């Protein structure tokens, strides 16, 4: 007797797993940014470009995963 049925493709599972890494990465980046600004508020304008760049790099992987989940059959 089947306990539960899961429908769909493995793409969804793959995307879900691939979203873990960027999620943690973005969290770490902004945790560092918030800590840095909290210690020294004047450094906000210095740290912001670095935080945005790091966020872009981490987020790119998440978006790659999202797009590939739809593209690959």
């Amino acid at each position, binding site marked *: 007797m089947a306990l539960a049925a899961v429908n769909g493709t493995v793409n969804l599972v793959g995307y879900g797993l691939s979203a873990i890494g960027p999620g943690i990465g973005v969290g770490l980046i902004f945790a560092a940014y918030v800590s840095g600004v909290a210690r020294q508020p004047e450094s906000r*304008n210095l740290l912001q*470009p670095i935080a945005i760049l790091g*966020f872009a790099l981490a987020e790119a992987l998440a978006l790659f995963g999202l797009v590939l989940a739809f593209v690959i059959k």
Partner: protein
Amino acid sequence: MTGRSGQSDSDGPTDPTGGGAGRSDGSGRHEDAGAYAAYSVIGYLLAGLLFWGGVGFALDRWLGTNFLVLIGMLVGGAAAMYLIYVRYGKA
């Protein structure tokens, strides 16, 4: 409990130019430039991946290959990251 009635205006930032001097796009308003930048970053990445990935996909359909989609996405991702660097990465 007077709420915000005691403040007349939002506090200015520490630098006199309003925080927008270093940015190469129009938005330099102090605290919210971060939100603008963050959503713009996602917008650039999506636009890059989808547009050049779409071009690669169309070329794939036309030429019958199956790897141009990936190349298109990589090119689009690289272009998007370059744009993000130009707009938001330079201090």
